[in-house]
């Protein structure tokens, strides 16, 4: 089993996530796509950790998971409050911070 399969899978997952962030309007879906990108990165980290035989990559992957969990909590709260005030979960409607 070569590493490249894992890396190619990670790249595909990351690309799907990135495209999702760029093209979807629903904030929840965008969020899930962000998670997908993070998981793709985690997969890469663990792949390299296995190949070098150290645990550094696995530890960083654990950190990423913790941070992602925290981020999801705050992000969902923000999305909820936006939805309450505007009755919409579209990220294009929340464009108050323009020029």
């Amino acid at each position, binding site marked *: 089993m070569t590493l490249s399969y894992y890396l190619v899978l990670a790249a595909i997952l990351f690309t799907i996530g990135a495209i999702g962030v760029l093209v979807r309007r629903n904030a929840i879906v965008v969020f899930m796509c962000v998670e997908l990108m993070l998981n793709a990165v985690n997969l890469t980290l663990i792949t390299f950790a296995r190949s070098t035989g150290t645990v550094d990559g696995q530890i960083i992957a654990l950190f990423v998971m913790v941070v992602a969990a925290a981020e999801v909590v705050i992000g969902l709260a923000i999305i909820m409050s936006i939805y309450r005030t505007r009755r919409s979960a579209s990220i*294009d409607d*929340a464009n*108050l911070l*323009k*020029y």
Partner: protein
Amino acid sequence: MSETLPADGLLGWSWLLIALPLAGAAVLLLGGRRTDRWGHLLGTATVVASFLLAVLCTIQLAGLEERSADVDLFTFISTGELDVRAGLLFDPLSAIFALLITGVGSLIHVYSIGYMAHDPARRRFFAYLNLFVAAMLLLVLGNSFVALYVGWEGVGLASYLLIAFWYTRPAAATAAKKAFIMNRVGDVGLALAIFIMFAQLGTTSYEGVFGAVGTLAGGTITAIGLLLLLGACGKSGQFPLQAWLPDAMEGPTPVSALIHAATMVTAGVYLIARSAPIYDLTETARTVVLAIGALTLLIGAIAGCAYDDIKKVLAYSTVSQIGYMFLAVGLGPAGYVAGLAHLLAHGFFKAGLFLGAGSVMHAMNDQVDMRRFGGLWKKLPVTFVTFGLGYLALIGFPFLSGYFTKDAIIEAALDRDDVWGWVLGGVAVLGAGLTAFYMTRLMLMTFFGRARWEDGHGSTPVNPHESPSVMTAPMVVLAFGSVFAGALLVSVFPLSGWLEPVFGEPAEAAHVVAPALIGLVVTVVMLLGVLAAWLFVGRREVPVTAPVRVSPVTRAARNALYADTVNESLFMRPGQWLTRALVWVDNRGVDGAVNGLAATLGGSSSRLGRAQTGFVRSYALGMLGGAVLVAGALLAVTAG
């Protein structure tokens, strides 16, 4: 210089000389209109009190063994190694100046009461006059070059205020500015000289500077001498800074008499006489003083021959007479006393002449064109007699003031006993002839001949009348001075003996040419000048308008030998071109660059601001683009 002792007794109070007129000026300026009714009396009283005090101080000074008193007042500047004490030096030289300033000043204050009687701003006039007297006394009594400089600027300010006294007249305002600016040109020289003293000697007191000046390099001493001379030229209206003095006649006539004839313009002579120990060490600077004196003497006399404005003729006469004084002090020890004697005598008769001219103007509805005068001697008898005596004194009529003092200068010039002595003496004798010519012309056109004011020129008919006695009395006193001052100063009460503590023992005159012969020659030349004036002016009818078809010499003289033109083309025009070029560069170049940069930044920032759409997805695209770019760059670096 002799030992200077701390002053005691009355001399310790000599600062009151300055303080009295200064207080007068302060009261009149701060009091405003409330002092209108008695302001002129207060102004006159302070100067008269100063005069009495000056007399008493001088008497006490004469009794002192050392004849020099130092009045220490307070610390003026004390910083680091620099320590300037404000103090007064009352010695024979400053004493005669104090007497001249307060004496002639008192007379002119009295005269002004009458002359300015109908002027609504008379109080302001007396305030400025008092300010002037105070500044002038500080100039001559100060014991350091810094004190002198303070007074120097003070008289410049007072002169500016007084020339522009009738500031609603454009000519007066322009003349005041011209006087102020030309004086500043000279003051730069004086200031630089004082800076050099600070830098090289660390002191500016007369005692300190004169004691240590010998230790300096020859070039430095010459530089100090020449810079002091530049300052003196500015204040005294000497070549090449003479053009402001005739224009300054726009001020009220008492100002012309006091400031521009008797006192302030002689400050240059005082400065050079006071700095004698410096000039003793630099032959170069002294030669330049001589050259400037001789040149100015001729320029002033030539210009005086061509003007029709009675006050401008007298002003050019002043320029010329101060040229005599510069010539005298430029001669060194031999000439100091002669120059100062001429200064004192000139103070009397020129002030008298100006007051007489003021009286004539008073009678003629403020006209100054001599071509509109004539035949006034019957109408203005007191003015005529006093003016006539001043005239005779000025042209050096035998045994009147000018005769003694001018001859003393010519004798001193000839006593140099070299070819330059003959040149300078010749110039001085020629100047005497020219003086006789233009002053006789003035007398003939003003007082004799047909009364041309009856022709009905001018807006209002004139009815000449003698001035009130408050004006004629000072003229009479000054006429006495014109007659007797010269003889008193030269023979009866010799100035050389009085000034001995300042300039040392007078050297025994070599007498290359016998004084009697000189007196004879000068008198003959003077009579030739009078005769020429009679032939050209007195014998003929004086045209009421100046003839246009005249010789180039006359035209040059009418333009004061093109002094204004030279100044304009040499200094004013290049300056204007330079400023114009700089303004252009500033507008187009500097402003263009700065404004262009600002516009570029502003424009591009507002365009970049458009990128802030507020759409999260476009930001995400930006981030992705950036990441791809960075990754691509990394790949390129690692692959390359």
